[in-house]
């Protein structure tokens, strides 16, 4: 029995040597989640990183395991929304967008209107919500810009909205103003695929 347990522990460390930083009980529980995710075809690196984040931050084992389990479930939900061809960065960004309040329908719509990779578009959506923009406003804005804006344009759009919010603008209004400026430019036939650098207010 003891030998079997030792063999199991050695096997776990051999599979994921970085998880050696976790205490044995947490490591075993995390490994079960990781192996299950791998079997389901989900990326396991985000799960390992979440476990390592938890242990570096001194979180209790139960909390680490719960976080890893939740992330595995959310990666699965993101894959359903994004499709089986989604890359690991897209799935991670999809998780962030879902957790920010974007619906699976919004993510599926984004997939329809924008060529992959969708990593930046999904991340901008999540980051806008983190800045205080209501989830539906953020989703509407990203979906409006997504068909033509480049990744760099979306990042610049997010920065402009954050800048306006920092200066006191209501998050929803800041988003609307900036998306209107961007949408006008994106519709210009002379400048396909770009969004203007938004003007400062």
């Amino acid at each position, binding site marked *: 029995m003891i030998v079997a347990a030792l063999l199991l522990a050695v096997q776990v460390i051999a599979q994921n040597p*970085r998880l050696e930083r976790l205490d044995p009980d947490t490591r075993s529980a995390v490994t079960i989640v990781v192996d299950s995710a791998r079997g389901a075809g989900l990326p396991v690196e*985000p799960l390992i*990183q979440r476990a*390592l*984040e*938890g*242990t*570096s*931050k001194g*979180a209790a084992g139960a*909390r680490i395991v*719960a*976080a890893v389990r*939740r992330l595995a479930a959310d990666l699965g939900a993101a894959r359903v929304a994004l499709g089986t061809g989604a*890359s*690991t*960065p*897209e799935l*991670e*960004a999809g998780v*962030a967008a879902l*957790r*920010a309040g974007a619906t699976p329908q919004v993510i599926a719509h984004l997939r329809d209107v924008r060529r*992959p*990779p969708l*990593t*930046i578009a999904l*991340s*901008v959506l*999540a*980051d806008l*919500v*983190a*800045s205080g923009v209501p989830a539906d406003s953020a989703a509407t804005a990203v979906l409006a810009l997504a068909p033509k804006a480049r*990744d*760099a344009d979306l*990042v610049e759009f*997010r920065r402009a909205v*954050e800048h306006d919010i920092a*200066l*006191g603008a209501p998050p929803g209004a800041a988003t609307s103003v900036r998306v209107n400026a961007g949408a006008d430019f994106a519709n210009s036939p002379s400048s396909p695929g770009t969004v203007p650098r938004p003007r*400062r*207010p």
Partner: protein
Amino acid sequence: MFEHDDDIVERMIRQLRRPVSLDPGLAARVMGEIAAPAHPGIGRTWPWLAAAAAVLGAVVIAHPWTRGSGTSTAAFQFVLVAPQAASVSLVGDFNDWDPARSPMRTAQGVWATVVPLAPGRYRYAFLVNGVEWRADPGAPAAKDDEFDTPSSVVTVGGRGS
């Protein structure tokens, strides 16, 4: 007296809300100054450098390149202004959350390090003096922190694995 104070506050708010125009080359110059070791003019330029770094926060896209595997990677510079800190480490999804992997170097309290990042969305934080977790004031916050410590997010575009 209170009206007078209110006037002052109003004026300060108006000043703070004035649009700020930055030279597009500012980020590159600031990062060049930070990266240069033992810059002879650092003492003279420190106030300007600290102010600029505080505005920029962290994360500046520097030089994209391609690794042997074909995965496009870009160098990101992370900066934290922490004049009182004795040590600062950058920890995140890109270095196994291991403080020993990315110690930051300081020039007059401006801590900086450069990390190559492949496409993806990364959570990270600064560990100050080995005990204090700090988010990046210049980057989006990680809202889904489950460990009760602040973290930030950086996203690198491009096609990942």
